[in-house]
């Protein structure tokens, strides 16, 4: 009864959908990237272009700039969220009243639509309306206008992302911390190890798989951030927060330059994969080597 045929039949709908809406677009974008194709050009039919589109990317300073700021954004966001999330999970491990209640509140931003997160933070930061510009001016004398100052706009997108996604890190770290074995830690305490030694030689190695998985998930999410930032800054001022996703969506798209847009899309996909692979190699392979030595 458990035949191959029945098994594949059960899998068929899933594989079919993923093929039509996942694999077919990928092949389509691959083919398109080797053509000159502009819907509003004099000749709107696709023509073979070789690697022209890819050659163009190398000289596209706007695209290269958006890659750079996306990497910077992802770095800041992932590091701060990992540190803060670990700290919060540690705090959550001790016993205190209303723990479940606080955990629910803490998880709340995770469920909110990214577009609504962007709208919320816009209402917080609009001059004359939001409390942030007012309070920063009153307390610190800071002239806070994210519509004018690139650095402030960048930092605001980072803080917004930390508000939105730190709960995910807290929850994964909490899950990992709760499943730590007790004996090695008791033994270390008897042996007189201090807290830093325990953290470095016991906690960190035990948490390693969970930390790796979380960094991966957050990294990939940070690299494709679009909705919140679009709602908050619209990619501005100038191009200060125009991350790759926004660049593809708001710059390449309306130009109807399909061939070039396809090439940009593929390069973005390629960069994402390479980055994750590098991260994997540097974090996992180094450990393997250490073990071999």
């Amino acid at each position, binding site marked *: 009864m458990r035949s191959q045929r029945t098994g594949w039949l059960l899998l068929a709908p899933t594989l079919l959908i993923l093929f039509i809406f996942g694999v077919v677009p990928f092949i389509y974008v691959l083919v398109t990237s080797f053509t000159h194709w502009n819907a509003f050009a004099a000749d709107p039919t696709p023509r073979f272009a070789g690697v022209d589109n890819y050659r163009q990317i190398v000289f596209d300073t706007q695209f290269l700039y958006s890659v750079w700021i996306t990497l910077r954004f992802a770095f800041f966001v992932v590091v701060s969220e990992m540190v803060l999330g670990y700290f919060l999970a540690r705090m959550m491990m001790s016993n205190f009243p209303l723990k479940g209640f606080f955990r629910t509140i803490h998880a709340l931003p995770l*469920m*909110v639509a990214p577009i609504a997160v962007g709208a919320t933070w816009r209402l917080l930061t609009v001059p004359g309306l939001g409390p942030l510009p007012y309070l920063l001016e009153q307390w610190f004398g800071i002239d806070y206008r994210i519509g004018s100052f690139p650095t402030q706009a960048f930092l605001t997108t980072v803080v917004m992302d930390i508000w939105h996604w730190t709960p995910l890190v807290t929850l994964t770290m909490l899950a990992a911390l709760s499943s730590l074995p007790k004996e090695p830690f008791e033994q270390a305490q008897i042996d007189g190890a201090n807290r830093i030694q325990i953290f470095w030689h016991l906690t960190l190695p035990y948490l390693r798989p969970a930390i790796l998985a979380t960094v991966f998930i957050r990294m990939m999410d940070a690299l494709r951030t679009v909705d919140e930032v679009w709602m908050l800054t619209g990619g501005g001022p100038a191009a200060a927060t125009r991350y790759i996703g926004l660049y593809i969506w708001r710059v390449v798209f309306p130009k109807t330059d399909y061939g070039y847009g396809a090439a940009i899309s593929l390069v973005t996909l390629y960069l994402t994969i390479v980055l994750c692979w590098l991260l994997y190699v540097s974090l996992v392979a180094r450990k393997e080597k250490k073990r071999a030595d």
Partner: protein
Amino acid sequence: MRRSRGILTLVFWCGASIITLFPIYWLFVISAKSRADLFGRPSLLLDSVNWDNYIATLTNPVFQHYMLNSIIVATCNCLLVTTMALLATYALSRFPLVGKENIFFWTITNRMAPPAVFLLPLFLLYTQAFTIGEWKLYDTRIGLILLYCVFNLPFAIWILRGIIDAIPKELDEAAMVDGANLWQILTRVILPVARPGLAVTAILTWVFAWNEYLFAATLTSVHARTITTGLAEFVTVTGTNWGLMAATAMLTLLPALVFLGIVQRHIVAGLTFGAVKE
């Protein structure tokens, strides 16, 4: 000593909760102010709640249409994904399929790709290739429902895999000995045992589909627009009506708030499976 530490932790979490809740509280404050009060004296407190913005939003026929689209798309996608994922996970868990671990991994990778990369090819496919005569997949609800499977199916399979694997094989083998067919095993044996896990999966996929914006904004124009695209339209129009935007944002995040109370315990359990398994 121990007690005072407990109190300190409590104080800490009260502070952290205020930071977490403040943006959403502020959203509510703006949505419940009249237009005249909006730019007056800056105040963090509300004198009185004014429901005008909510009434204006909910009675607007365009908004009603967006809301209905969102409900239909999220619900249909959630039912479709949960059913397909249950069948697929059952096959992956119980059948001796060749290369099934590779298939499982490939399924998951579909969720990892940046969505912006697929905007262009999907837009072209929806407007030019996926057509029957005059009918296009572009700007239809079914187009969104099918597309959302690409990111929701991998997620559902990932969550359900642990749940189905944890159900003892002896249960369905016993049913097989009694002469039950595949359909009966799925509905009478697996479904009742996996119900809590299935419910959590269904709720989370519903929320993901409800929250999606990028594809909804690109692949629809009039008929199939969803509430998230409606919310984004406020920023592109000059002279934003902040009160209405806040009310719409509140309505957008309302279902998420309701569902969070139901699934919060299970979210931690689900993450344990994903993160700790070595």
